[in-house]
């Protein structure tokens, strides 16, 4: 009798465990204290491009970073205004990747896809985009507008150094990149 009871309680516990498992997986991104955003927060001022140190064996700011790239980050907060981003394009390869506050890469573009000598785009929330004046929508064809699903997040700028000696050049390209609030009239 008590064995059956124990088995039933265990079965109930296992079923409940399934719910605990799914809930913990879903909740974890919101409670993580060592995610990329939290690690970068003390090093990067908000709404400004900040260069990250080149990864080395004794310095792993973020795991699995590609050491062939110069990397800079614009940690953004769109609460006050949309952002305008400009990045010159190098000889080799330059890309911009947009991450939400929780590290989800929701958009990425490279120099060739941007098709110009500088990558120029505007970052805003869906709400800010809907408030764009009508006549501006007409000219929006040659404006690159990226919609952020979260109010805060990271734009990661990467410039390839095809050989180690090109690293200063790659870092120079990113040093000329800009990210600044672009208030709506």
């Amino acid at each position, binding site marked *: 009798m008590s064995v059956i009871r124990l088995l039933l309680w265990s079965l109930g516990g296992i079923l409940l*465990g399934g719910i605990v498992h799914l809930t913990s997986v879903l909740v974890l991104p919101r409670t993580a204290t060592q995610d990329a955003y939290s690690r970068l927060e003390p090093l990067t001022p908000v709404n400004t491009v900040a260069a990250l140190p080149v990864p*080395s064996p004794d310095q792993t700011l973020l795991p699995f970073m*590609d*050491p062939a790239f110069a990397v800079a980050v614009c940690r953004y907060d769109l609460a006050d205004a949309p952002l305008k981003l400009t990045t010159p394009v190098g000889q080799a390869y330059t890309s911009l990747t947009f991450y939400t506050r929780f590290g989800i*890469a929701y*958009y990425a573009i490279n120099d060739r896809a941007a098709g110009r000598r500088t990558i120029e785009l505007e970052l805003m929330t869906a709400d800010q985009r809907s408030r764009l004046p009508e006549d501006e929508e007409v000219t929006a064809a040659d404006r690159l507008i990226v919609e952020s699903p979260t109010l805060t997040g990271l734009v990661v700028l990467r410039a*390839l150094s095809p050989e180690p000696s090109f690293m200063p050049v790659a870092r120079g390209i990113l040093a000329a990149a800009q990210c600044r609030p672009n208030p709506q009239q």
Partner: protein
Amino acid sequence: MRLVFGSLFAFVVAAVVGLGATWLALSRGVAFGGVTIGAWTAWPKTGTSEIDPYARAVVAQTGRLPIGSGDGVAFFAQTDDRGRMFDGRCDVVVNGTTPPARFWTLTLYDRSGSLVANSINRYGFTSQEIVRRADGTFEIVIAPRARPGNWLPTGGVERYVLVLRLYDTPVGVASRTGREAPMPAVLAGACP
């Protein structure tokens, strides 16, 4: 009283099973939608908004920033083509060609994603640096001691991970086979 003990017992079972499964899933790196070609596996959806909840949890917990799908795709390998774990005290040869891409890089990490210290400060190769044969194929020897040609030092670590990243490439979520994406062969060799 029985009810109290019973439900307490059930809660303990639930916590152990639930959190244990979460811990296992995250430490083993459970992720769905992987594309495996030879020794290499990529998770192209991890670089999009459609990333699955397990990969999302791993990303948040480890602090990594997955490569965006508009940027490129990253293939990971921990074993050679026959399933033998990489051992930094032995030789591993990466041989062949890579899928079409404007640039690619091959990097060696320890299992936590840090670079591995070595005498020549080389942590990987880019497609521009590699010495190729006349037909465009290449061979990279990953070994603890110096080799002629493309030598990638292991620093003597026991376990490591190779990451082959393709930048500006048609390879992605839709790629399934080695014909669409010819990955280089990986073979473990001599072990002193």
